[in-house]
């Protein structure tokens, strides 16, 4: 049972501004049947350029319907420039807060607003182009979406990211990647000046590999009671030893190739080969 606020319950049970507007000045739809929620937002402007009528149609749960209803209330009487400033947090706040797992409903509201404003300005249908590489295939979330979400909302954990934009909430296959993206983005430094022009010195390489092991590999192994020790770096050959539950584990050779080597290839160099020292 969700702990919805009275305001959410009120807007769900008696939604404001449900319905359609014929010949709307702006209209935008986001979400889909497959994803489990969708919102279509329509508005009309008066002579002074203020939103005089706003309607919504929503397929979704109680908080999706309540967020839609709240959004229409919030944009009424505003100019496009004013409405544009409404964030998903404003929608959630207007409702007295949403359960953590339902924050994405308010994000859907914000996106529908963007889509409707885009339609008003360009006359075109807002079609969320797949911009970037799809990371979460269950919900079609790209690396660009994730970057934006993390940067704009100070997201620190994968759970928060899932609550925000659903990424990682399906099959879970992308969770390790989301984790490393969040770590990378939150530890972000200005882009390296040389842009890969100079090869790393051996010492730099060792530091870098140690850093990747510490940040990306060790936490995953420790969850299963294992650990990994860096023994030597010889050119592109990295020698490691498994410890704890990983040593003697029959699947450690898979772990070595699939986890350790893959991560180092991604982060250090495609030429890296990892060898296990028993």
């Amino acid at each position, binding site marked *: 049972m969700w702990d919805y606020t009275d305001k959410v319950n009120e807007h769900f*049970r008696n939604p404001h501004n449900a319905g359609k507007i014929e010949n709307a000045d702006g209209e935008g739809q986001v979400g889909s*049947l497959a994803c*489990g929620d969708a919102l279509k937002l329509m508005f009309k402007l008066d002579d002074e350029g203020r939103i005089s009528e706003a309607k919504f149609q*929503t*397929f*979704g*749960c*109680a908080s999706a319907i309540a967020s839609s209803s709240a959004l229409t209330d919030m944009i009424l009487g505003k100019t496009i420039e004013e409405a544009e400033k409404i964030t998903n947090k404003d929608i959630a706040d207007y409702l007295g807060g949403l359960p953590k*797992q339902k924050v994405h409903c308010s994000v859907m509201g914000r996106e529908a607003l963007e889509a409707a404003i885009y339609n008003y300005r360009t006359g075109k249908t807002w079609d969320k182009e797949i911009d970037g590489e799809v990371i979460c295939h269950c919900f079609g979330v790209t690396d660009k979406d994730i970057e934006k979400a993390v940067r704009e909302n100070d997201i620190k954990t994968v759970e928060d990211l899932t609550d925000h934009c659903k990424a990682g909430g399906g099959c879970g296959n992308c969770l390790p990647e989301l984790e490393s993206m969040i770590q990378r983005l939150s530890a972000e430094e200005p882009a390296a000046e040389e842009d890969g022009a100079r090869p790393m010195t051996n010492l730099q390489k060792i530091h870098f590999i140690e850093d990747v092991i510490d940040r990306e590999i060790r936490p995953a192994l420790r969850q299963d009671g294992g650990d990994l020790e860096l023994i030597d770096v010889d050119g592109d050959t990295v020698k490691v030893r498994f410890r704890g539950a990983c040593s003697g584990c029959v699947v450690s050779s898979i772990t070595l190739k699939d986890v350790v080597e893959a991560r180092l290839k991604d982060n250090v160099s495609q030429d890296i080969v990892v060898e296990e020292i028993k």
Partner: protein
Amino acid sequence: MKTVYVDNNATTQIADEVREAMIPFLTDLWGNPSSMHTFGGQTKKYIETAREQVAALIGAADPQEITFTSCGSESNNLAIRGGAEAMDKPPHVITSKVEHAAVSGPCHYLEDRGLRLTKIDVDAKGRLDVETLQREVKAGKSLTSIMWANNETGVIFPVGLIGEMVHEFGGIFHTDAVQAVGKIPMNVSELPIDMLSLSGHKIHAPKGVGALYIRRGTKVKPLVLGGHQERGRRAGTENVPYLVGLGLACELAGKKMNEENTRVKAMRDRLEAGILKSCPGSRVNGDPAGRLPNTTNISFDYIEGEAILLMLDDKGICASTGSACASGSLEPSHVLRAMQVAGMSVHGSIRFSLSTYNTEEDVDAVLTELPKVVKRLRELSPFV
């Protein structure tokens, strides 16, 4: 407002008789069954009566084949983890894609420890892919755990056939029968079943009590160590009042088996037909020809399950949904997804599950309120 409870696959009302039978063991007869003195030791015989009552409902040859546990989940864990550990070498673990988490959880636990795990598919009606199972059981001794009936759709699996396949190659067969016990007649002594889980609160006993049938000769390593109770299979002072309650609930279920399969089934059928007729764009999930008598799972196009449930809740109607939005995760029902039910229909699925405590008035109440809810939510939907 009267509560219309049609969510009996989630939990059931405690039978008055069961509650009354438990009370003496919560008031006067609170002794420890292991005590040497008469005051404690006298309670032992009530546990053994309960064991006989459980054995009788499922057709176990010997009451000693019943081990009491704290719940269905514990029974499943004991069967799967304890069963695998007791086998002479690590088995190939086989299960289905539509099991309850209390089965898939321990199966994944074994997989994490290096055992091979295979999950068998179901078809669009939720029926097990028996051909694949036939192939998989051949690859070395298996510990196969496949439910007797599915909690979400009520679809019944051919446990006799599955058991034969598993036994032919020396494997062990466990079935999670938590939803089937008390709803369909069964006789485990005549079936190739080595272990069977059941739960009290699904058959009008309280939550917090269950049992595992372990066929004589089947080896299981205990999960709870440190006592001789349950013949060393499950340590811990016996929960006498709850065991007495479970025993009586089993006896009552046996007596009501006929009613379950006639009156309850007829109410379910009337409810289902009434919904399909009054709500266009609705369809049944599962296999209408091979289902529990009390369960129906229906998808409604273009609307979402949590919203339907909350609006029904306003009218005192208690049901459940396979929608992701109601579950706390974003992942919708794994059962309906394994059946390749389209995304929209998964999100808009509602399960109604009846019991002998339901009346025709309950069915009428759902048939009055549900079409209004569906209509109202469709008016809000952008897809209609």
